[in-house]
C-alpha cells in the first residue's frame, strides 16, 4: 500500500496560505472590518492549541492511553513560564529559557504521572489523568505564595528579538512591538507548530513511533515482540505532556499572562480530546483539522455570529432565547454528535486506522490513484 510515494504533497500550499495571509495586510483588515475580530490573533491561538492537541495525540492517538488531563500540563507550562519571566520573581530568564524549561518541566510531570498509571488498564488511566488535572488546578489556585492564586502571574514579557532581524522585519512591514503587531506572535507560533509537526512526522515513522502504535494495537503482542511497554508508555507521556508544556509557554507569552488556574480545567482537556478524536486518532492532519474546526468555532465563528446578531438588533428586549451565547453549547454539542455519527473513525483518520476498519472503498477510489 504505497501509492502515495510519488504524490506531490499538498501541505506546502496550506502552509503558504498561512504564511502569506498576514503579509498581505489587506485580508486581515478586510476580515476585521467584516467581523470586528482580529482573525490573525485568533489564528495564533489556534496554532498554540494545535501544538497542545498534537501533544495529546501522542498519548491518546498513537499510544492509545486515554488522557483526560492534558490541560494540567498546558497550565504547568504556562506557570513555569510565568515564574521564570514575570517581574515579581527574581529569575526573569527571558523567553527562550522559559520555553525550554516549560517543555522539560511539563515532560517531567508527565512522567511522574505516567509512572503510577502504567499498571492501570484501560479507562482507569482516564480517571487518574483526570484526577491529576484537577489536583493541579487546585494546587495552582491554592499555592498563592507561588502562583498568585486566581490573579495569575502577569505581565509575562514578550520575547526579545535579536537586533539583526528587526531590519528584515521592517522590510516586510512588521513592527518590532509584540503587543501592537500581532504578526510577531503569529509567526512565532506558526514556526513552532511547523517544527513540532516536522518532529512528530519523523517520530511517527521511527522505532519509537511504531512501538507506540504497537502498544495501542495490542500491548501483549507488543511486549512479546520485545517492546518494553513501560518505557514506551512513559516516553509517550513525556513527549505528549512536554508538547503541552511548550504550548503552555507560548500561550502565556502570547496572552502576556498565565491567565488563572481555571483556564486549565477539565473542560479544556475535554475540548482538546474532542479535537483529536474527531480529527482522527493518530493522524497529524486530522488533529490539525479538528483544532481548526472546534477551536475556530469557539474563537472566531461564535463571536462573529454574536456580533452579527447584535448588529441586526433583533433582540432589543434582552430575551435570553435570542442571544447567540445561549445557544453556543447546543450548536457545539450537536456538531460533535453529528460528526461522530457520520465519521466515527475521525474526519481524516490515519491510513492505518482507516485500513483497519476495512474502508477498502477509499484505497480503491479511482480519483486518488493517478493524482
Amino acid at each position, binding site marked *: 500500500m504505497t501509492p502515495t510515494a510519488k504524490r506531490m504533497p499538498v501541505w506546502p500550499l496550506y502552509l503558504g496560505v498561512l504564511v502569506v495571509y498576514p503579509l498581505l495586510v489587506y485580508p486581515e483588515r478586510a476580515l476585521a472590518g467584516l467581523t470586528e475580530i482580529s482573525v490573525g490573533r485568533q489564528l495564533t491561538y489556534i496554532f498554540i492549541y494545535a501544538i497542545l492537541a498534537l501533544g495529546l495525540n501522542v498519548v*491518546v492517538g498513537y499510544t492509545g492511553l*486515554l488522557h483526560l488531563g492534558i490541560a494540567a500540563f498546558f497550565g504547568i507550562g504556562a506557570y513555569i513560564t510565568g515564574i521564570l519571566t514575570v517581574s515579581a520573581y527574581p529569575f526573569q530568564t527571558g523567553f527562550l529559557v522559559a520555553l525550554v524549561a516549560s517543555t522539560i518541566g511539563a515532560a517531567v510531570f508527565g512522567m511522574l504521572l505516567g509512572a*503510577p498509571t502504567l*499498571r*492501570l*488498564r*484501560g*479507562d*482507569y488511566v*482516564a*480517571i*487518574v489523568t*483526570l*484526577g*491529576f488535572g*484537577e*489536583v493541579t488546578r*487546585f*494546587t495552582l*489556585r*491554592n499555592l498563592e505564595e507561588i502562583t498568585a492564586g486566581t490573579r495569575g502571574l502577569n505581565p509575562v514579557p514578550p520575547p526579545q528579538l535579536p537586533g539583526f532581524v528587526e531590519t528584515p522585519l521592517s522590510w516586510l512591514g512588521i513592527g518590532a512591538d509584540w503587543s501592537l503587531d500581532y504578526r510577531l506572535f503569529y509567526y512565532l507560533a506558526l514556526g513552532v507548530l511547523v517544527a513540532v509537526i516536522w518532529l512528530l512526522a519523523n517520530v511517527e515513522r521511527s522505532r519509537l513511533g511504531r512501538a507506540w502504535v504497537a502498544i495501542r494495537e*495490542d*500491548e*501483549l503482542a507488543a511486549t512479546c515482540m520485545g517492546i518494553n511497554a513501560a518505557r514506551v508508555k512513559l516516553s509517550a507521556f513525556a513527549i505528549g505532556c512536554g508538547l503541552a508544556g511548550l504550548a503552555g509557554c507560548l500561550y502565556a507569552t502570547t496572552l502576556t499572562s498565565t491567565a488563572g488556574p481555571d483556564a486549565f480545567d*477539565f473542560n479544556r482537556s*475535554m475540548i482538546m*480530546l*474532542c479535537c483529536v*478524536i*474527531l480529527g482522527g*486518532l493518530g493522524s497529524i492532519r486530522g488533529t490539525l483539522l479538528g483544532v481548526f474546526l472546534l477551536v475556530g468555532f469557539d474563537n472566531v465563528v461564535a463571536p462573529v455570529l454574536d456580533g452579527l446578531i447584535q448588529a441586526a438588533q433583533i433582540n432589543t428586549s434582552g430575551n*435570553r*432565547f435570542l442571544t447567540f451565547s*445561549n*445557544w*453556543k*453549547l*447546543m450548536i*457545539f*454539542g*450537536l*456538531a*460533535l*454528535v453529528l*460528526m*461522530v*455519527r457520520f465519521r*466515527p*473513525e475521525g474526519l481524516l483518520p490515519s491510513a492505518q*486506522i482507516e485500513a483497519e*476498519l476495512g474502508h477498502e472503498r477509499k484505497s480503491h477510489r479511482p480519483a486518488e490513484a493517478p493524482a
Partner: protein
Amino acid sequence: MTSFPLLVAQAESAEFWQTFLQYALIGLTNGALFALIALGYTMVYGIIELINFAHGEVFMLGAFLALTLVLHVMKLDEATPVGLWVGIGLLLLIVPLFCAVINVSIDWLVYKPLRQAPKLAPLVSAIGVSFVLMNVGLLWGGAADVHFPDFVSRHNLLGEDAALSFTYKDLMVVLITVPIMIALTLFVQTTRMGKAMRATAQDPVAAQLMGIHVDRVIGVTFALGGALAGAAAVIYSLYINTVSYQMGFTNGLYAFTAAVLGGIGNIPGAVLGGLVIGLARSFGSGYVGERWTSALVFVILIAILVFRPSGLLGARTREKV
C-alpha cells in the same frame, strides 16, 4: 485551615468526637447522593464500556423538572404537610421516569448507531450530548443558581439543643437512597433481567448467543441509570436547595470518580466509592481545609488506584486479549 497540631491537641476531648461524628454524618449523607448518581454511571459502563459524560446532565435536567413541577404545577410551597409528602412521592415517580426516557432516547439516538465504531468515538458523542443538555438547562433555568424551596423540616432529630445535628432532611436522604440501592441490588442479583444484564456485562457476544436480547438489556440499563439519576435529582434538590445548569458537571465528575474508585462496573463498588468521596470531602473540609477538599478527593483516588488498580471492589481481571 484547622491545623494538625490543633487536631492532636483536641483528640481527647468530647468536642473533638462530636465534630468528628458531625463530619461523618454529613459525609455519609452527601456520599449517599454521590453514590446514587454513580450507580447510573457504573451500570452503563459495565454494559457497554462507555464513560457516559452526559449522565450528570440527565441528573441536572431532572432537578430542573423537579423545580418546575414544584413551583408551577404542584405548588408545593402552599401545600399542607400531608400534601407535601404526597407531592414528594409524586416527584419521585415523575422525575425518574422523565430522566429514564431522556437517557434511553440518548442511547437510542446517539450511542446505538456507534456500537461498532472505534471505542473512543462514543466518548466524544457523550461529551457532545452533555453540552447539548447543559444548554437545555441554561435555556430552562438561566445562568444563575436558582433557589429550590425548602420544604423538609430542619428539625434536629437528636433534640433541638443537641450539639450534634441530624435533621429530618438528613434522615430523608437516607430513607430514600438506601431502599433504592437495596432494590437495585436485588433486581440485578435475583431477577431474570438482572441476570441478563450481568451476562451482557461479561460478554455481550456470548450473551447474544445464549439468546439474550442484548439491545433490550442495554435499553433497560440506560432506563435504570436515568431513573436513578432522576431520583438523585429530587433528593439533591430537596437537600441542597440549589439548582443550576452547571450542577450536572460537578456532580457527574464526582459520581464518575466514585464509580471508578469502587471498581467501575461494580454496583456495591459505586456505593462504597460514593460514600468514600462524601467522607473525604467532609473530613477534608474539617481537618485539611475547605479549599483543598476537591484536590484531596482526587489524591485519594489516585492513591487507591495505585495500590488497587481495579478499584476498591473491582475484580482483578486480566484485560481481554
